[in-house]
């Protein structure tokens, strides 16, 4: 027993050491974002935290505009996705119909062919539709989500069919069954997929890079890259750090606040 607890102790120490190493980048970023600009390059320098870096960043680039664009794209995509994955997930979980296997494999193919790979043909399509440099154009390729469909489908399969039958006996139609019976029970599936989808859009870079050529429609990730590219030297690290933190903060804070719910919803959604 004794030997085991020593081994356990060592394992735990290693675990926390690795965790610390894993956190160095974010600690480094936060520290550099709040330090006085002239001290940014000195590892051991300490100064009172300052917001000057953030002020300069917000003066130099329209980050609020970028925020607005990212928010618009993220929320818009998510809302459409929720509707579509609910309907599609329900069909694949509950309905026995002609072509179900074929369509299911077709859906899965979207999981295998990442949308990023199709930037060129999708860009050609968008320019033919006159949708380049628009936010709707950035959003369109993500409306159907195979992963979301799969998560909803797996979750619906764990819900007793009797609930649907009971609602039907009470005279509910399909729309009512979906909204009243399933949607409330899909909460953890929505939360799981919501976080995945939001972080996906927040991350999305290559597609908006080819799609936009104006500040008006540029999302945060792209705005940040443009901002960082304008500083090649180390001298403005504090500014770049502040900008990077501005971009990362919303999702990081959301994750810290809702970590428990998020991890739990991940456990209870169909992913297993």
């Amino acid at each position, binding site marked *: 027993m004794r030997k085991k607890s020593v081994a356990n102790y060592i394992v735990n120490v290693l675990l926390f050491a690795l965790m610390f190493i894993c956190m160095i980048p974010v600690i480094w970023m936060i520290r550099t974002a709040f330090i006085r600009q002239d001290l940014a390059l000195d590892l051991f320098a300490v100064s009172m935290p300052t917001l000057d870096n953030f002020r300069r960043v917000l003066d130099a680039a329209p980050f609020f505009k970028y925020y607005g664009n990212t928010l618009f794209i993220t929320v818009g995509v998510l809302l459409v996705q929720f509707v579509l994955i609910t309907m599609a997930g329900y069909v694949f979980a509950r309905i026995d119909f002609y072509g179900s296997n074929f369509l299911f494999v077709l859906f899965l193919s979207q999981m295998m062919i990442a949308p990023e790979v199709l930037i060129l043909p999708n860009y050609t*399509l968008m320019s033919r539709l006159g949708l380049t440099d628009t936010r709707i154009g950035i959003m369109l390729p993500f409306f159907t989500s195979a992963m979301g469909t799969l998560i909803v489908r797996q979750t619906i399969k764990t819900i007793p069919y009797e609930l649907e039958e009971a609602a039907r006996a009470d005279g509910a139609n399909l729309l009512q069954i979906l909204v009243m019976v399933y949607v409330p029970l899909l909460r953890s599936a929505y939360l799981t997929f919501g976080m995945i989808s939001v972080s996906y859009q*927040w991350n999305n870079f290559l597609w908006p890079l080819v799609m936009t050529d104006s500040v008006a429609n540029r999302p945060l990730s792209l705005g940040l890259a443009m901002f960082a590219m304008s500083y090649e030297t*180390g001298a403005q690290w504090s500014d770049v750090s502040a900008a990077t933190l501005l971009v990362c903060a919303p999702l990081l804070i959301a994750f810290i606040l809702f970590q428990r719910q998020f991890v739990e919803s991940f456990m209870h959604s169909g*992913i*297993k």
Partner: protein
Amino acid sequence: MKNQTVDTSMQSTVARAVRMKWKRTVKAWLLLAPALFFLFVFTLYPVAQSLYSSLFRDNLSTIKPVFIGLDNYKALLKDPVFRECFRNNLLIAVVTIPLCMGLAVILATISNRLTRGVSLVRLGFIYPTFIPLVAAANIWMFIYTPIYGLLGYINPSWRFLADGKTAIWALIVMLIWKNTGYIMLFYIAGLHGIDKELYEAARIDGATETQMFTKITWPMLQATNIYVLIIVLTNAYKMVDHLYIMTKGGPGNATNMLLFYIYQTGFDYWDTGKASAITVILVLMMLIITSVNFFTSDRKAFYND
């Protein structure tokens, strides 16, 4: 259905069942219609479009696209940049996939057993998931930049990103840091689905921790592995945003990857024919790799509950 009278012939029952199924089929297709529409327009049609465009010479030097058959593909086979990208993609997949999955499953297992600090540990490992790759690239530039970077404090002459031999490894370290937490989430969920009684029984039988992992945990995670493999496989080919900030595929093309090469070819050099051919090859690779994984593994995860 249960109270069928004796005189109902078998045939009319079958006909009724078929009719019902057709009714369900119409309903199902209608419900799927919007999702199918977007799937068709933005995934399937673009694949077909790439296949078509890849058969033409279509670049800045041609006024009108000229049909050239498979010449774009033949040229790619001889294109040293393409081959280097291909090798890099392969290297990244071969190195990051087992490392990410292995680390993730071990970290998930160990952190699950902690009596305290579970949330902290999860936070510490999972947070990179929520940092955009371009943002991560900025942060890692502060680490890798010679002299002033964080590693510069250890040895000012380290130039990992500027050296063609080390650059890709420096990026691989970052990719592992970025991806492991996401995979860990799936394993935490997968571990949660394993019946605790299995471990109790094994403990009574005197199984060691290692035995419990190899005989219970790992086999029980097979369904999770299918998800995870698809995610890590596609990630290995699609994560290129950091290149834009960190190396632009250089030095030379030492860190270049197929997707970034598509971007460069299609949007910097406007060689649509060639970029389409690379797109087709990448799509084919992803389909082949993921379907081999999908069809050789236990498909229950997808087809059953």
